[in-house]
């Protein structure tokens, strides 16, 4: 059964040391703020397949013990300052990856198999820094080398979407990677702009863009929950705000000042 809970209750249910999968599109910045407020720590962040301001905030706030990602960047606003500083300081375990390898690891978990073969990658130094990835002789078909990556089973998948219905079905549109995260994860927490009274499974057209409640454990309402990042069909990204973050977060003090403003801003919206 999907529970509809408060944002604070949702965040409080992520325990220290747990792995948390987060997306690129449909980022729950509201839950990110709530996690930081709740004193989250030692989290193992899995970026599906990259992240930006969300990861950088969690890193700067000291909530991250390990990170698996294909990249962390603020896009047009440049590099992610807290990520870059933390990498140089060796502040957390770093599991560098490449986008389709993270998606393949989640797919293995979705299928209930221990690993997934994946094309390419041979020749990359990623194979040196990821001893958990193996190059094997293809056991079937044309002889040749193939890379296999282990299944990725996040403790919690966390994202933001426009709507949930009363039963906990979530409208994700064509952002199927959000469903992929939920299939692979042990539990899925979703924040939404609103809860609607109609049944999102009612028509084929609507159901095709829905993640069924079977995969959804907790839903919390968080208006403008992706801000300052965009949410499809709802609002564009606040690029000026991300640029302001990028500039302030260059120093530790600037980051602290930004974070406290960000948390109080999020409290006001909530």
């Amino acid at each position, binding site marked *: 059964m999907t529970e509809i809970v408060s944002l604070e209750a949702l965040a409080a249910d992520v325990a220290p040391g747990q792995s948390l999968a987060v997306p690129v599109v449909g980022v729950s910045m509201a839950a990110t703020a709530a996690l930081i407020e709740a004193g989250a720590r030692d989290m193992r962040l899995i970026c599906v397949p990259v992240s930006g301001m969300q990861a950088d905030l969690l890193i700067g706030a000291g909530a991250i013990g390990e990170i698996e990602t*294909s990249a962390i960047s603020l896009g047009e606003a440049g590099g992610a300052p807290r990520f870059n500083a933390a990498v*140089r300081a060796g502040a957390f375990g770093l599991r*560098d990856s490449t*986008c389709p390898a993270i998606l393949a690891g989640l*797919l293995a978990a979705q299928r209930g198999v221990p690993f997934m073969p994946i094309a390419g990658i041979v*020749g990359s130094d990623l194979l040196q820094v990821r001893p958990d990835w193996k190059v094997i002789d293809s056991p079937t078909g044309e002889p040749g080398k193939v890379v296999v990556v282990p299944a990725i089973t996040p403790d919690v998948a966390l994202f933001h979407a426009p709507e949930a219905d009363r039963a906990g079905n979530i409208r994700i549109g064509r952002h*199927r990677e959000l*469903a*992929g995260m939920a299939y692979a994860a042990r539990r899925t927490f979703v924040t939404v702009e609103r809860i609607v009274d109609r049944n999102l499974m009612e028509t084929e057209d609507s159901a095709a863009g829905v993640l069924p409640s079977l995969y959804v454990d907790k839903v919390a309402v968080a208006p403008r929950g992706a801000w300052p990042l965009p949410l499809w069909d709802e609002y564009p990204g606040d690029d000026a705000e991300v640029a302001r973050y990028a500039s302030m977060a260059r120093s530790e003090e600037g980051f602290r000042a930004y974070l406290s403003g960000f948390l109080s801003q999020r409290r006001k919206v909530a």
Partner: protein
Amino acid sequence: MAAERERRELLINVVAGLLDGIRHVAVGASSPIPAAGAMLLRARSELEGKPPVRISILGSQEHNFFTNGAIELFDCAAQGRVDAFFLGGGQIDGAGNINLVGTGAYPKSDVRWPGSFGSAYLYHLVPRVILFREEHSPRVFVPKVDFVSAAATTPEVKRRGGPYALLTNMALFDFDRSRGGFALRSVHPGYSSSDVRSQTGFDYVEPPVVPATPLPDAQTLELLRGRVMRELAETYPAFARTMLQAA
């Protein structure tokens, strides 16, 4: 401003030429010049009655015809349905290997860059990967990258993908996959082949006479300044605006 516009127009025109003959090109986020080159090719193909060109711009809602989530681009490339893609690199070496991770020892890099993104995979699978890096300096073009995000040639595995050309602010190089190295094709107006040599940290093949990179012709400029900038403005409004203001 006018000089900056001319510089960009030259690069966009070269990109369109490098893409000639492709059916589907994917462009990463924050890549206005590659995207404009792809749009120029699409407009030209339409005018010349050639087969239509599809453009996927990652992170764009209008230029995204995928419906199966983030994995679809990668699946599409594995199926041979992506003909061209662009990659950059904090470092690019003479063997065509690229580094998107950082400089110095790993993991505590001296300078850390965002990360490898999809490069380790797409370099193997997309036939025409165009390396695009505007800064042409010895710190970018190094003898050997500090970290191989994606390897250009791997004789130990079968692959259809790899580097096709390298385009910078100064010059255009072809990549020879059998030899595993670059060859200078042309130098942009305003630079000499010795400028290129002194700013490139790796060795490459150079013809006895190095031609100048051709400037866009009048018809191309008309398309570029009209239709292409209008189309580009949907995804890169700030870039299109500065181009139009310089006119």
